[in-house]
């Protein structure tokens, strides 16, 4: 990813840089580039930009317009090269001709998307490596002017359909990543992106000026697919999250809300919140008195970010470099997966000097431009699978697909098998505590005891040797559910107590409960507990799990009012339930 600003994306500079690259420096990555445009101008700048990320890119350039030939021929150069990454770049220029010559314009976009998906499948059948597929840039010509937006069967319409279709299909292929060149073109302006002269002379995808943007996007996606990416944003407070200085201006005096600059900070906070929702940890590192700083999060009516969104809150008068080191240690992540945002150039430079690995982008003076500056750097490219919190939209979409697929299967078991569900059990760890605490606060229905542990209480559980607190993260071939269950087991003599058992209702009826119970009893057996004791404490909302323990052969004990019902199981009598869930390692094979 880019380190500080866009100036790094200068075509001529990158060509020069590519010439001076030392061979063999950095982690070797073999990349196959398939394209229906020429790639000679792209390759050097790709190598230069990969080198900036510590990667020594070895690039196989397939012949001009040989995407299908390379993919479908088992003896092609593509497969002989044994790439670790395949990039497919396609231009609308070729599609334009095909579209106008097509006899079946209504079916055009679909058959194009079919063709591209079959290329992915051919590659996937021989290589298990990430594939980066470009979108098509929607062309600018309009035979109907604005009216064309409501006319069926236009070229721009067909191209948007292909793009949408490709993105949907890519959701079903975990190893296919979309490089949304249409977004880049829209951002830069299509009239700046297309270069008709360069197409005529050299079959170039776009103007030389914008080629580095395309290359950088490919690098960003490649790095994310290698597991490199930002996991944590460390935030300054005064003049970064709100206007003014809380210690001087007070709760009523800081700029935050709808008026003037306040809106800029609100926009910035909304963006940060969207990062949090997709699993990025937010941390605060501010020169402030802690209680004063926290009060803004607790009491200011216009704050978008609240304490629950902050994984670690450091406000004191020590230097920021030391505080950032402390945050890193506590969250147990690498400096290279952290970014530090501060309006103050002095603090930025100090941190750059003392913690060179952490990313410290320049922020513009005008807070209204913070989000723009950060988006231009594309700091938060993601490979999707590691998100802590769910990407809700995608979830709802995939839930629909699951439903529609469900109808094709005669019985539940074969349906469950087809989902290829993977569940990962993990003892609480620092990186997940935020999400765990959040789930504990939120879960009402599938929650046996409704004990609302705070994040710091979870941390205590995490470090308690006589407790086994674990979470379950689930994904299937349609998508990622993230962390969706929390279970806390407590040692008590020869009895293992199920202190907490809660789950997100999104994953009911697919065997996760059975999987969890199998694990609980296995754990009890392995650690020589004679029995497992569970408890159901009724609330206004959790009646759905009243008989939960009963279905696993637990025996109902006495009912004790608010303390609920106790259920007891002799470990030796438990019969493991049949589940269709895999552990992560089984899939990896």
């Amino acid at each position, binding site marked *: 990813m880019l380190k500080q600003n866009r100036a790094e994306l200068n*075509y*001529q500079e990158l*060509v020069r840089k590519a010439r001076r690259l030392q061979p063999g420096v950095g982690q070797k990555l073999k990349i196959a580039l398939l394209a229906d445009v020429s790639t*000679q101008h792209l390759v050097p700048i790709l190598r230069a930009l990969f080198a900036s990320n510590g990667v020594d890119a070895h690039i196989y350039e397939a012949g001009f317009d040989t995407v299908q030939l390379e993919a479908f021929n088992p003896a092609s150069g593509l497969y002989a090269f044994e790439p670790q990454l395949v990039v497919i770049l396609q231009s609308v220029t070729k599609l334009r001709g095909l579209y106008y010559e097509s006899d079946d314009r209504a079916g055009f976009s679909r058959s194009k998307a079919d063709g591209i998906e079959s290329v992915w499948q051919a590659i996937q059948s021989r290589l298990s490596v990430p594939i980066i597929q470009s979108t098509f840039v929607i062309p600018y010509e309009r035979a109907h002017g604005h009216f064309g937006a409501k006319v069926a069967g236009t070229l721009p319409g067909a191209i948007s359909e292909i793009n949408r279709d490709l993105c949907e299909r890519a959701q079903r292929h975990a190893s296919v990543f979309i490089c949304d060149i249409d977004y880049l073109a829209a951002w830069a302006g299509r009239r700046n992106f297309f270069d008709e002269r*360069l197409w005529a002379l*050299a079959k*170039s995808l776009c103007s*030389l000026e914008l080629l580095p943007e395309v290359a950088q996007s490919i690098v960003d996606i490649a790095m994310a697919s290698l597991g490199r990416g930002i996991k944590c944003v460390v935030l300054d407070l005064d003049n970064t999250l709100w206007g003014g200085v809380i210690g001087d201006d007070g709760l009523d005096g800081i700029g935050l809300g709808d008026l003037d600059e306040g809106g800029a900070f609100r926009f910035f906070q909304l963006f940060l919140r969207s990062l949090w929702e997709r699993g990025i940890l937010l941390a605060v590192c501010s020169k402030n008195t802690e209680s004063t700083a926290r009060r803004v999060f607790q009491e200011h009516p216009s704050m978008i970010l609240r304490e629950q969104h902050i994984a670690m809150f450091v406000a004191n008068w020590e230097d920021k470099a030391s505080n950032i080191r402390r945050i890193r240690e506590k969250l147990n992540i690498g400096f290279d997966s952290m970014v530090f945002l501060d309006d103050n150039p002095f603090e930025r430079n100090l941190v750059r000097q003392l913690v060179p690995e952490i990313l410290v982008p320049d922020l513009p003076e005008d807070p209204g431009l913070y989000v723009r500056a950060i988006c231009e750097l594309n700091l938060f490219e993601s490979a999707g699978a590691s998100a802590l919190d769910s990407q809700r939209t995608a979830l709802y979409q995939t839930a629909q697909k699951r439903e529609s697929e469900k109808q094709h299967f005669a019985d539940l078991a074969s349906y469950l098998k087809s989902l290829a569900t993977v569940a990962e059990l993990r003892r609480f760890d620092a990186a997940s505590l935020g999400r765990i605490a959040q789930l504990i606060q939120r879960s009402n229905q599938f929650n046996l005891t409704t004990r609302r542990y705070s994040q710091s209480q979870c941390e205590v559980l995490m470090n308690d040797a006589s407790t086994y607190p674990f979470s379950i993260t689930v994904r299937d071939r349609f998508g990622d559910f993230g962390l969706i269950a929390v279970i806390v087991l407590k040692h008590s003599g020869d009895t293992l107590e199920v202190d907490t058992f809660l789950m997100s209702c999104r994953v009911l009826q697919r065997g996760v409960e059975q999987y969890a119970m199998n694990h609980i009893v296995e754990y009890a057996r392995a650690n020589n507990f004679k029995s497992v004791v569970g408890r159901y404490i009724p609330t206004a909302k959790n009646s759905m799990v009243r008989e939960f323990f009963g279905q696993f052969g637990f025996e109902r004990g006495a009912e004790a009012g608010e303390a609920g019902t106790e259920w007891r199981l002799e470990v030796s009598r438990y019969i493991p339930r049949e589940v269709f869930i895999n552990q992560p390692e089984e899939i990896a094979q």
Partner: protein
Amino acid sequence: MTHEEVHKRLTAVFRDVFDDPSLGISDSTTADDIDDWDSVNHITLIAAVETEFRISLSTREVKNLGNVGDFMKLIESKAR
């Protein structure tokens, strides 16, 4: 802009693009005289010339550029 000025600035562009600080060019210099002057670098060269002289060349003009003299003539006719 004088002929000398154009020549001086064009030389700087060539040196930059072909990464050779001692490169000298004359009107009769062609792609055969400079090792790295291939079709790929030709495009890079055009882009650099356009940026340097703030001019824009058409596809046909680019096609017809045979030697440095052609570059000089075109730049002199277009640059202000």
